[in-house]
């Protein structure tokens, strides 16, 4: 059995530290995750032993780094079960991936009066790029509504789909409340009308087994740093056919084939979308994170996290005056709550003093907070290195908050 919580905690150096003189509890995993030694050491090794820019050098180290970078691409391909390596585009992160699609596919297919569908539980990163595109093109943004549990209303979605719909962009998992959307079904419905779909996987990739072919997603985007990898690196998966069709986004080195002052022709996939020196050390680090997750077992991780979420939901629900948001049947490790009569900022400050990191505020998802009629929540987001004991400590801190502010 590879999944042993004590071994896992030892893999993450930061979990051994103290904050405010107490053992550190990290419950802000939806913002970013901590890094296992395997990732830290892998990146350290590149910097110490093999660092050289990729693809351009004929020299020894450039060759090694290029191979490592391309091996990371293969690791990603395998991790999300894409058909081809060249369908994996390295980006700086989820936001960059969504912007890339909005500025390429978006610019190509959206005309005045066309429609783009998103959902009510999106992160700002999957709202604003589409909103701006709509403004540029005089197109319309349509929003799939949700119920009080935080689940999308698929019947409403079916009604929103029209002959003018050109793109559907929906999150796989909602960052603020943890809802897992039925993305396979959402994609199927869009495809029945020939509409391509982008899935924001930023909050899904670290919790669920993602198979882009099974989902039949046209685009799937995520970030390395939310899946135990480094910051500044992410992935845009796109189906080969659609990536071939859309124009390049940023231009510069690496992504070109021939350049003269009269005409430039572009390199083939995936390089067409990777202008400039990519974050190759980030990509190698992200690859190491994926290998680590596979080693621990994606299904084991999911099962452990499910148990932890159930425990956390039960324990927090027992606290009087605490209201949990996001009660979707299908959800992953987010416990988003308010305390009756207590401002989330006050709660967060006191919880922090207990050495526990949570996030407070609107979680870059203002529309959903508005839908619930609240200014913000306290959000504890879980990872597989968290424990039931840590949840107990959160509950104690919450009791203290209640005592202080009542």
């Amino acid at each position: 059995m590879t999944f042993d919580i004590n071994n896992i905690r030892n893999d993450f150096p930061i979990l051994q530290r103290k904050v405010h003189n107490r053992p550190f509890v990290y419950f802000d995993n939806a913002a970013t995750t901590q890094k296992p030694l395997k990732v830290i050491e892998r990146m350290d090794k590149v910097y110490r032993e093999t660092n050289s820019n990729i693809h351009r050098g004929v020299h020894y180290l450039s060759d090694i780094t290029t191979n490592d970078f391309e091996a990371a691409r293969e690791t990603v391909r395998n991790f999300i079960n894409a058909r081809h390596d060249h369908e994996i585009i390295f980006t700086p992160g989820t936001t960059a991936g969504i912007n890339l699609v909005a500025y390429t596919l978006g610019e190509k297919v959206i005309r005045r009066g066309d429609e783009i569908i998103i959902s009510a539980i999106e992160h700002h990163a999957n709202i604003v790029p589409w909103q701006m595109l709509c403004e540029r093109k005089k197109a319309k943004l349509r929003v799939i509504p949700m119920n009080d549990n935080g689940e999308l209303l698929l019947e409403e979605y079916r009604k929103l789909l029209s002959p003018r719909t050109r793109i559907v962009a929906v999150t796989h998992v909602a960052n603020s409340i943890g809802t897992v959307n039925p993305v396979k079904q959402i994609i199927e419905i869009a495809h029945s009308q020939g509409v391509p779909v982008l899935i924001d996987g930023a909050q899904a990739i670290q919790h669920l087994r993602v198979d882009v072919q099974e989902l039949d997603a046209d685009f799937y985007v995520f970030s390395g740093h939310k899946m135990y990898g480094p910051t500044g690196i992410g992935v845009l998966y796109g189906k080969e056919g659609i990536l071939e069709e859309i124009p390049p986004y940023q231009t510069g080195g690496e992504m070109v084939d021939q350049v003269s002052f009269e005409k430039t022709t572009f390199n083939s996939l995936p390089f067409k979308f990777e202008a400039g020196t990519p974050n190759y050390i980030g990509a190698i680090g992200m690859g190491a994170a994926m290998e680590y997750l596979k080693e621990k077992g994606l299904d084991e991780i999911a099962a452990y996290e499910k148990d932890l979420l159930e425990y956390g939901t039960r324990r927090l629900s027992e606290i009087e005056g605490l209201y949990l948001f996001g009660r979707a049947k299908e959800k992953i490790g987010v416990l988003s709550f308010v305390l009756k009569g207590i401002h989330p900022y006050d709660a967060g400050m006191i919880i922090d003093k207990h050495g526990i990191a949570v996030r407070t505020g609107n979680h870059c998802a203002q529309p959903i907070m508005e839908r619930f009629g609240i200014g913000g929540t306290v959000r504890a987001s879980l990872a597989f290195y968290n424990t039931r004991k840590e949840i107990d400590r959160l509950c104690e801190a919450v009791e203290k908050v209640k005592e202080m502010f009542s």
Partner: protein
Amino acid sequence: MAEKTITEIQDEIIDEFEVFEDWLDKYNYLIDISKSLPVVDEEYKKPQYLIEGCQSRVWLRAEMEDRKVVYTADSDAVITKGIIALLIRVLSGRTPEEIINTELYFIDRIGLKENLSPTRSNGLVAMIKQMKLYALAWQAKSSKK
């Protein structure tokens, strides 16, 4: 007895906080003093008085009384409100010149600096700036006359 200077009040607050040994007492005290804040009337809780933070919101109003700036304020978060109460204790009822020239060192010294970090985005940093801007505006106005 002569009125205390801004420096004296800042030092007084620092003394008051020195008795607290841990953060818990300190924050409990802050919660206590939040209740003493001269809050703005509900009618002034309008967008023009609102200083929007990502985490908590602050309403601030300034009036000129007898050549001195008098502040009233409020926040939806108690800890923020407690710190506002301290800021008002230090700056309210002072001349624009005094306010503009004051260096606020007491928050750092009482160990509440984390509340003033711009990344906390609770409206306090913007509030201090706004307090000084009000003073500057009054000063400019009176020098024109």
